[in-house]
């Protein structure tokens, strides 16, 4: 094996050939050269009382392991228009999964488990969807047609998601450009996955059926950072309605990435916008790596139609002890097979993502398609060397491998091995075309793993259980009349007011702009200060437990109104807020009492200055010239707050800078 470069050396070499560098070390021009294009699909739960197509309450989650009943289903692919199975469908059927649903009576009914047809779409949800559709500037449909979008992974017990287009072709402004919106739809949320091991996948049905909107953008985002900014803008936009859910899982992004010569790959379930730059950056280079592999295959003169694998059964003793025997505990027949991949030398250890090589692409598919848990394979370029050198030589002998071939050993329950062999072969054949069309699951480190084949438009078909729902002109006008100010205008106003940029983010995220605007305009308060109170103070006061009602921001307007009425200086608001958020029911005069506020007029406070000044002279030990000022301000602070402007007081206290 001396003729082989060490696998990790090869990975480093190919990383360099592909030109991978970490995010932030690459200029926007490089992305432009790669033909980086990104589109977003943003899923946002709506704040409704009920689920979308049944009368179950929305927004209640069952605790882990708590359920009332369980049922099992299987998903069968249905034929597409052309009599072909949809790619995803076929793959999911190959997996032969038992899908278990854990139901809790409180959160799911017979609709959720597909034993009752849908009820009329929730009007509250439709109103909110229309609101967002108008904010996005889309063309609103005349009539909603509920469509079924097939999902065979079991995440929806019917095997499809009911979804309906509300508007098409809109746009949002982003950093001086426009990003096109393809469509916005209102749809039902899917189940939450509990576990997925071997052939058994378990879901809970609490989230199922919750109303969502999905906003899909054109692939107009041309750098990883712009992609994140687009997601951020759309988040601010939906939140500006005040009618969407917040908290963990309430908003989820799917991110589509492609580069020139590559193909659209969908990264699913991105839980945080801050993950988007890294994920899209790494995906772009993964596609570039796969294109590099394709060109290497072409250079070697390999043709996919003449490319065939050879297989050979290995004795069971060859299965690495620490893997399957532990996982399956002798419960099933285990089988190990060696495969020869002609001309693939150096490709299995080819860089694809940080910490991953091409062999991982195969291993991921073995887990998903053949249901074999990892570690499910070893190979001739495996730096972890699950196979010994003598074993590898023996495998090569048995497979009659040529020196330029690579070898893979897979193992698992005997019943899954035929699918596993097909899966390895299928993935390797895809290397000849470059980047497979697939959806990938995102991980916090920015890498992704294969999740399923990307479905085509063939999986959409009309829902025969629901009638079309007309969207009347009056309804649109009623909603249009109540629209919030566009996010772009909110941003511009805050920039004009010179609000600190980190405060801008918080205010938009929490939908507090209207509060800021009212306080500034109605009570003539300085915007920067109010913005600081809103973002800095509230942020620290408000770790709202999931599912609980947070602080109602309209209370802030009441507080400023009260201060104005009572002629109390608004600097006291900051001191009041902890009490107000802790005791939302408490009346404001009682809040003042609780924080120990005593009404003093300006002169009463200024009269104390000579006394304090004299006192300080007695006790002072500090050489600091500012100490006197600081000490006196400290003594007066509580008393002064709300009664006199602190800045003014500061000017009057002896020992200040001005003196």
């Amino acid at each position: 094996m001396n003729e082989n470069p060490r696998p990790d050396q090869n990975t480093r070499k190919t990383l360099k050939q592909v030109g991978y560098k970490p995010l932030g070390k690459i200029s926007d021009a490089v992305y432009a050269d790669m033909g980086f294009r990104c589109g977003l699909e943003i899923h946002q739960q709506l704040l409704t009382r009920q689920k979308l197509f049944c009368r179950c309450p929305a927004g209640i989650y069952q605790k882990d392991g708590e359920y009332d009943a369980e049922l099992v289903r299987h998903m069968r692919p249905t034929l597409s228009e052309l009599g072909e199975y949809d790619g995803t469908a076929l793959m999911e059927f190959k997996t032969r999964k038992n899908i278990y649903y854990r139901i809790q009576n409180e959160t799911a009914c017979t609709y959720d488990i597909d034993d009752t047809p849908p009820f009329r779409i929730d009007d509250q949800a439709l109103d909110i969807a229309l609101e967002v559709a108008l904010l996005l500037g889309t063309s609103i449909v005349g009539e909603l047609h509920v469509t079924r979008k097939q999902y065979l992974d079991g995440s929806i017990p019917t095997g499809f998601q009911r979804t309906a287009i509300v508007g098409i072709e809109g746009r949002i402004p982003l950093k001086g450009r426009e990003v096109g919106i393809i469509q916005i739809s209102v749809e039902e949320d899917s189940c939450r996955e509990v576990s997925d091991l071997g052939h058994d996948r378990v879901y809970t049905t609490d989230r199922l059926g919750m109303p969502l909107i999905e906003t899909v953008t054109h692939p107009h985002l041309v750098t990883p950072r712009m992609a994140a900014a687009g997601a951020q803008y759309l988040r601010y936009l939906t939140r500006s309605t005040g009618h969407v859910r917040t908290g963990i899982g309430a908003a989820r992004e799917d991110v589509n990435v492609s580069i020139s010569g590559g193909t659209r790959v969908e990264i699913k379930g991105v839980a945080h916008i801050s993950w988007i730059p890294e994920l899209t950056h790494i995906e772009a280079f993964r596609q570039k790596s796969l294109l590099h592999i394709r060109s290497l295959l072409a250079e070697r003169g390999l043709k996919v139609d003449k490319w065939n694998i050879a297989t050979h059964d290995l004795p069971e003793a060859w299965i690495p002890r620490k893997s399957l025997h532990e996982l399956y505990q002798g419960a099933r027949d285990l089988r190990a097979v060696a495969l020869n991949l002609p001309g693939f030398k150096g490709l299995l250890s080819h860089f694809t993502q940080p910490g991953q090589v091409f062999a991982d692409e195969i291993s991921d598919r073995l887990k998903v398609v053949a249901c074999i848990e990892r570690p499910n394979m070893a190979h001739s370029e495996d730096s972890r060397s699950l196979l010994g050198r003598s074993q590898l030589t023996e495998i090569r002998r048995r497979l009659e491998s040529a020196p330029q071939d690579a070898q893979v050993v897979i193992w698992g329950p005997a019943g899954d091995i035929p699918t596993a062999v097909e899966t390895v072969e299928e993935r390797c054949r895809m290397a000849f075309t470059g980047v497979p069309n697939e959806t990938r699951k995102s991980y916090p480190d920015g890498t992704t793993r294969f999740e399923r084949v990307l479905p085509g438009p063939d999986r959409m078909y009309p829902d025969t259980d629901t009638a079309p729902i007309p969207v009347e002109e009056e309804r649109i006008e009623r909603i249009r009349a109540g629209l919030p100010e566009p996010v772009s205008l909110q941003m511009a106003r805050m920039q004009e007011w010179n609000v600190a940029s980190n405060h801008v983010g918080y205010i938009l995220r929490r939908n507090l702009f209207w509060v800021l605007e009212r306080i500034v305009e109605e009570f003539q308060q300085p915007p920067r200060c109010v913005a600081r109170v809103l973002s800095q103070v509230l942020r620290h006061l408000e770790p709202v437990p999931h599912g609980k009602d947070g602080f109602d921001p309209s209370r802030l307007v009441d507080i400023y109104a009260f201060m104005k009425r009572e002629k109390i200086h608004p600097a006291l608001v900051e001191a009041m807020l902890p009490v107000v958020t802790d005791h939302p029911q408490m009346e404001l005069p009682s809040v003042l009492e609780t924080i120990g506020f005593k009404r003093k007029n300006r002169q009463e406070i200024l009269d104390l200055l000579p006394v304090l000044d004299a006192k300080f002279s007695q006790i002072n030990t500090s050489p600091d010239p500012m100490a006197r000022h600081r000490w006196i301000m400290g003594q007066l602070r509580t008393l002064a707050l709300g009664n006199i402007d602190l800045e003014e007081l500061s000017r009057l206290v002896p020992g200040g800078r001005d003196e």
Partner: protein
Amino acid sequence: MSDMFKGYRGRALETLKKFNIRVWSEAEVKTTRGDFRGIVLPRSENDDDRHLVLKLDTGYNVGVDVDTVKSIQELGYREAHYKIPEKEFPFSPEKPRVKLFGTGGTIASRLDYRTGAVIPAFSPGELYGAVPELADICNLETEKLFAVFSENMGPSQYITLAKAIGEEIRRGVDGIVIGHGTDTMHHTAAALTFMVQNPPVPIIMVGSQRSSDRPSSDAALNLIHSTTAASRSEIAEVMVCMFGPTSDEYALLHSGTRVRKMHSSYRSTFRTIGDIPRARVEGERIIPMCKTFNPRRRDRDVTIKPFFEEKVSIVYYYPNMQPDIIDSLVDNGYRGIVIAGTGLGHVNKPLYPAIERATRKGVAVYMTVQTLWGYVHMFVYDTGRDLMSKGVVPAENMLPEVAYIKLGWALGQTEDLDEVKRIMLTPVSDETTPREPYNGYLIFQGGIPEVERFLKRYHK
């Protein structure tokens, strides 16, 4: 209306004509709400006349309000032709021969992806394309007898079906499957039990609660279970084969005279009433649950009794029912009335004269219970005794729908009311049973701790 504007009428039709647009046009529609581009789809005739339906490139359908339309331009024309793929059903000499009769229910169907119309899959080739597992079970032959919805099945269909079954048995099939809509499957099951007596092979009725165009459909598994039962069951009776639980786990075989659809939409909607099911079908196994049954035989003997009197009615009693309900049936020439009475088999006093008049005029009047479970007991209260003295015959624990079918069948054979009574009270296949087992009546009540424990432990 021509096909060019399929389903469109009124203002929507006018709009299409105005802009010279037809169904399947690829069109650019400019409206006051913005522009839409897609293929004009046919419209369902029951929908309003104010919208056009477009299929967008993304596969979604949307409706466009005709009042907002400014202009429509035809960009192309793409008519959809949808056909279910056919694959030749493989023949294996060692496998049993099963005949599948179609009545029109959509046990197997495919959805036209463009229009949403359901196209029934029925030929062996089509079925094989949809459920390839069938070829592992049997050699399948199919015949479409009618194309009617479940609710339109009636006596003439029962008779045609019974005769066709007789023919097939004589031709030597090893089992029969009847695809049927689920709504009235139990009526047809009862009719066939009476009309096809002493069959040597199983006669299995099957349907689906979720059409087979959806991935979670019960249709494929129901077809697999029913062909398995037809091929292998040792119980040679008319049985309904449908999901046991709502989970994809096993099917139950219910006696054709004791089965009833009990939920409007559940998969496990069919239940045996007042007894336990005949058997369970789990994978390739058929696990009998009853001790005595009509066993499978090698001979080809079967008695077909294709009779039915259509002038029979079923009257579901309610408080304050007026006697003219009964009178009008009699005056309209009805020869048999099945009453679904309250409790043990009762109706109110004002009905007595009408009932007396009916029986005097030679109308056969039978009493069943609307509680479904339990026997008619007309000796317990005076009401019951009064009714019997007026000629009402208690029908034991026969289900009301079964009594209706059986009375029609009995009156189709004879005008002699004593003979009718003999037929009615002599069970053909458990439509009345001498005893009710303790587990024949089980309606679990949710919320009770032990029931909740059961629900959590076993798949629903």
